[in-house]
């Protein structure tokens, strides 16, 4: 497997989180090269590179940056999404603890390109220890006089969340940063930028911003030399569950899923057989072992399998896994995390969990499978954000692909 390290290049160095080590290995040394170009030239390079958002949605970064209204007189903001709460996902924490200066450099470059002079990093409340490392790096960069955009001061503020999964949704994140409950906003009819207190704002994931320095310095073609046509570059894919060596390992898009699991994860734990893989965080459709054999780690391949690449955080399940319990576990998660704003989601997540509880208590009947599927349809496409549709995908994936296991728990 070809070595592909763009974001994790400095991860293994001792003391890689310090300014001294990061600088000795290239951090902040080429900023002036980017400042010599115009902001619109930089946005064009990002667009050409095909960089896609690495927080789960996979939207084109260049397209988003172009929505930032260069001639608008209002102040502009960058919000970096480090809420990372999707089960199976733990990659952004690697960046902020192992190479926070890469993120800071990406923020400086992004702010120059979009005309922002203040950036916020919204970090999940549970990452307290990780936040301290990140803050120390920001303080170090500030003391070294690095926090400026071509001479104009740049403010970077870490904003701590407080335990709400939904705040990883970009508009809920901004609501939260405005001092409100994390309720996602209604989406506009046409594509436009996000708004923070009514000001044009860009929201990007930590890993997306951390990919920016490489692209702007080495060029779009260098980034496209990794990955596939529609999924250029690399991703910090992750493995958890029943593998020998769980962890976060960067690889280029298009890598075969099984080759990745074998190469980095050392295969399935205790010599067991594979049963299923949830490919990109809990909210993507589960793949059977057979599907996993065909799967490649890119957007196209996952779409052809009616699943999604999501965050690239794979949850691997071996032959002994009880799929009914696995679905129950996820339904409890969604029930707990629904923000409660839309009725189909608030009520649907609870009802689905309750229905499955009844099955596990031995009170289920075969009609319950159809009831759950009907519930999934009721939740799909009826809400403000994609939380409820994701729950529908999860329910359908488990019920349709592992139906016999569910039927075995039902009375006729």
């Amino acid at each position, binding site marked *: 497997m070809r070595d592909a390290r763009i974001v994790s290049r400095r991860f293994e160095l001792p003391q890689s989180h310090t300014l001294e080590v990061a600088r000795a290995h290239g951090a902040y040394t080429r900023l002036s090269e980017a400042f010599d170009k115009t902001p619109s030239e930089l946005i064009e390079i990002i667009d050409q590179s095909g960089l896609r958002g690495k927080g789960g949605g996979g939207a084109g970064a260049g397209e988003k940056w172009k929505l930032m209204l260069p001639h608008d007189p209002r102040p502009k903001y960058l919000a970096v999404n480090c809420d990372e709460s999707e089960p199976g*996902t733990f990659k952004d924490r690697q960046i902020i603890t192992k190479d926070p200066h890469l993120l800071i450099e990406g923020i400086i470059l992004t702010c120059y390109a979009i005309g922002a002079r203040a950036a916020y990093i919204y970090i999940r409340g549970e990452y307290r220890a990780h936040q301290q490392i990140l803050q120390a790096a920001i303080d170090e960069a500030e003391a070294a006089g690095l926090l400026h955009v071509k001479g104009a001061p740049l403010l970077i503020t870490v904003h*701590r969340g407080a*335990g709400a999964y939904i705040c990883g949704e970009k508009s809920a994140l901004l609501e939260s940063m405005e001092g409100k409950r994390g309720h996602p906003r209604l989406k506009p009819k046409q594509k436009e930028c996000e708004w923070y207190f009514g000001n044009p704002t860009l929201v990007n994931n930590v890993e997306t911003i951390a990919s920016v320095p490489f692209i702007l310095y080495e060029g779009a073609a260098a980034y496209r030399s990794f990955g596939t046509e529609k999924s250029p570059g690399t991703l910090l894919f992750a493995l958890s569950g029943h593998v020998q060596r769980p962890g976060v390992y960067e690889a280029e898009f298009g890598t075969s899923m099984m080759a990745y699991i074998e190469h980095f994860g050392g295969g399935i734990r205790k010599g067991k057989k594979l049963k299923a893989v949830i490919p990109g965080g809990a909210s993507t459709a589960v793949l059977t072992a057979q599907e996993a054999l065909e799967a490649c780690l890119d957007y196209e391949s996952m779409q052809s399998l009616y699943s999604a690449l999501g965050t690239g955080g794979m949850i691997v399940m071996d032959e002994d896994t009880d799929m009914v319990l696995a679905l129950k576990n996820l339904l409890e998660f969604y029930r707990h995390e629904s923000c409660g704003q839309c009725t189909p989601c608030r009520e649907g997540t609870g009802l689905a969990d309750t229905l499955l509880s009844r099955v596990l208590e031995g009170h289920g009947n075969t009609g319950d499978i159809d009831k759950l599927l009907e519930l999934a349809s009721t939740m799909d496409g009826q809400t403000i954000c994609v939380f409820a549709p994701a729950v529908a995908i999860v329910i359908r994936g488990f019920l349709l692909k592992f139906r016999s296991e569910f039927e075995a728990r039902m009375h006729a």
Partner: protein
Amino acid sequence: MFTFTPQNLQKIEALKSRYPSPNALALPLLWMVQEQEGTISLEAMEAAAPFCDLPPIELYRIATFYTMFKLAPTGRHHIQLCKTLSCALCGKAEILAHLQERLGIGVGEMTPDGRFSLEQVECLGSCGTAPVMQINDVNFENLTPKKIDEILKALS
């Protein structure tokens, strides 16, 4: 009567200049209250509200939405065990049973001496080192019953 410490008042002033509106301070203020007092009381929310230019009820709405804000006291060592899928696949049930046995309390309970409280939480973002728990702000990863014994022994 709740008042912010002089140190926190300074912090608030510094933070104000970093945001376009004082409303943005709502979450930071609640964190400061919790770090200062351990829990967030109605009285503290009333005292904090003017600093973010919001009515107290708004702070109450926020404090009851975000699960990490504590409205009721917890033990000196607040144990939060991750219960989501990756941890569940890697032996969370065994860890929970061991914790309950060692502490003599169930989920959602506190030991009579106030030393420990136990809670199950959703994904802590530590799936590669499952099973995992957090005690106050510190992560403990790759848990085994033996490791739990060592961790608990080291806590006063």
